[in-house]
């Protein structure tokens, strides 16, 4: 039991090698965004628009965002795709905003499913389910307030565009400076497109092949980045979690942001909280700010993806994601009365789910599958 002999540290591969691999994966991820961007351009407005035909209604957009994220089990993949679509000019920013909000809701299904693991032990399940659904309820509340506000004023869109234009201008120094990242990404995606073109693919076939390859590459890179970062930073994550147990507030939000930015997945962060809450070592009040941090931290993926996108629209939608989660946090965290809404709702939902397992099944299928499908059918 000596510390010196502790196995399982997960550092059998040298950290330097893992970091190098990480940079390669990050490059792969950006190239994938570049490929997707190229695929959408090749498809052209008519065909690419067809993919999202009927999604002119914001509620349909919200439903698409939820359903797409539930299907791919990753908001990072959804938001990166939306960034690529916006960057290539195939999706209007205005229509993309509700989709981003939907992706935020859809991603919460992962930790809710994790909480189902303790369904046979009612006390643990009650705590676990409340921990998982506090994320859902927070997102519902944010969407309920911010989506109508956005539709009425466009404040998220306008602020994001303003910020993106300034950042873009800052990055290019006001001239025609090409970022070295974009140059490197372009070279990579051009080479792959060239290889596929050399195989005789062209037009719609080439676009379809690029799209499939890009999605596969985004999945693989994000999965491996998450896996690598988790192994690399496990000691830091453990120390941070130990530090934040029993604490609430800004430190917990900061820890949530830091872990999520590091592992590039809010689901990893929020899913870590579920067993801690189930065991009772983490209270819901302390888990809540970590969840909010995870929500903010996950927006960094879309920002990274925007590095590979053309123009400033990709960056603008990534910033919408960030602003939406920051606004939600500012609404539902600092004011105790508002903070209690997601916490109490999640607790109540958990009690209902313990009393009647049908509530659990109904909740999962209605929120993450049936309502989004209905939303798409009704509002398209």
């Amino acid at each position: 039991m000596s510390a010196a002999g502790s196995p399982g540290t997960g550092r059998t591969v040298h950290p330097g090698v893992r970091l190098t691999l990480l940079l390669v994966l990050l490059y792969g991820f950006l190239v994938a965004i570049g490929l997707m961007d190229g695929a959408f351009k090749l498809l052209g407005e008519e065909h690419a628009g067809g993919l999202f035909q009927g999604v002119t209604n914001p509620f349909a957009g919200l439903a698409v965002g939820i359903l797409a994220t539930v299907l791919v089990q990753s908001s990072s993949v959804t938001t990166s795709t939306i960034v690529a679509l916006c960057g290539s000019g195939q999706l209007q920013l205005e229509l993309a905003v509700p989709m981003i909000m939907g992706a935020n809701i859809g991603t919460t299904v992962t930790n809710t499913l994790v909480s189902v693991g303790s369904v046979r032990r009612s006390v643990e399940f009650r705590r676990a389910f409340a921990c998982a659904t506090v994320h859902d309820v927070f997102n519902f509340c944010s969407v309920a307030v911010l989506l109508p506000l956005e539709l009425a004023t466009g404040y998220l869109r306008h602020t994001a565009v303003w910020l993106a234009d300034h950042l873009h201008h800052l990055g290019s120094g006001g001239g025609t400076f090409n970022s070295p990242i974009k140059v490197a990404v372009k070279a990579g995606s051009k080479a792959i497109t060239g290889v596929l073109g050399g195989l005789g693919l062209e037009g719609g076939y080439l676009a379809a092949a690029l799209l499939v390859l890009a999605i596969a590459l985004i999945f693989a890179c994000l999965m491996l980045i998450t896996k690598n970062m988790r192994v690399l930073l496990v000691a830091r994550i453990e120390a941070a979690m130990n530090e934040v147990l029993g604490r609430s507030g800004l430190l917990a939000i900061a820890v949530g942001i830091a872990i999520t930015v590091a592992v590039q997945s809010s689901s990893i962060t929020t899913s870590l909280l579920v067993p801690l809450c189930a065991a009772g070592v983490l209270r819901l009040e302390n888990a809540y700010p970590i969840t909010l941090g995870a929500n903010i931290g996950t927006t960094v993926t879309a920002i990274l993806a925007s590095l590979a996108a053309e123009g400033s629209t990709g960056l603008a939608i990534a910033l919408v994601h960030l602003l939406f989660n920051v606004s939600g946090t500012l609404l539902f965290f600092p004011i105790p009365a508002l903070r209690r809404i997601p916490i109490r709702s999640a607790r109540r939902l958990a009690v209902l789910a313990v009393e009647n397992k049908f509530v659990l099944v109904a909740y999962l299928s209605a929120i993450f599958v049936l309502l989004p499908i209905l939303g798409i059918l009704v509002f398209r």
Partner: protein
Amino acid sequence: MLEWLLGDDVGMARIQQHFSQMIEDGRHVFDAACNTVLGGTDPGVVREDLHKTDQRINRLEQQIRRELVVHMTVREKAEIGTCLKFMSLVKDAERIGDYGKNIFDMGQECRDFVGDPMSADLIAVKDHVSRMLAKMRNLFESQSTEQARRFVDEAHAILRHCDERVSELVRDASLSRRPVVAALLYRYVKRVMAHAMNIVTSILVPLDKLDYLDEDDGDRV
């Protein structure tokens, strides 16, 4: 820079450090409590210190449990067996502090036991146990199986001695109130020793046989 980014891998080491602190505190409570019964220490002098130390032991037990849950949650390849062992051993370490507290309570009630003819043997046993508690801490850190076996043999001898003395006192009808004190003391000292022994047997036996060294088939040691 890279090392800073990764942080020190202190997960289990931190837990072990807290556990060692529990053992150290348990020994302190045991020594100070026994001194109130056997050495004539004024209970008022040590009361606050013992209370604080006992609370620290309880806090450490809870902290270790929390850290174990975090460790197992965060690490994909957590040392599950080691974590479960610690989960069980913290209870033993906590009980040592608890028995020390029981001894202290008795010391407050029986101020006249100091100098009793029975106290000479009890002082010898208490000193022996105290030395073994110190040895236990080092042994737990070094994980030496050879020394652990010697420790367990020595502990068994003390347990037997305590049992024999309790039997003698129970049978001796000529004695009055003081044998009760001595019997309880033997009982508590024995329990302290038994919990210390449980901790050390974790070096020798597999997880499922914790606390049951006698039943171990030896094949898996």
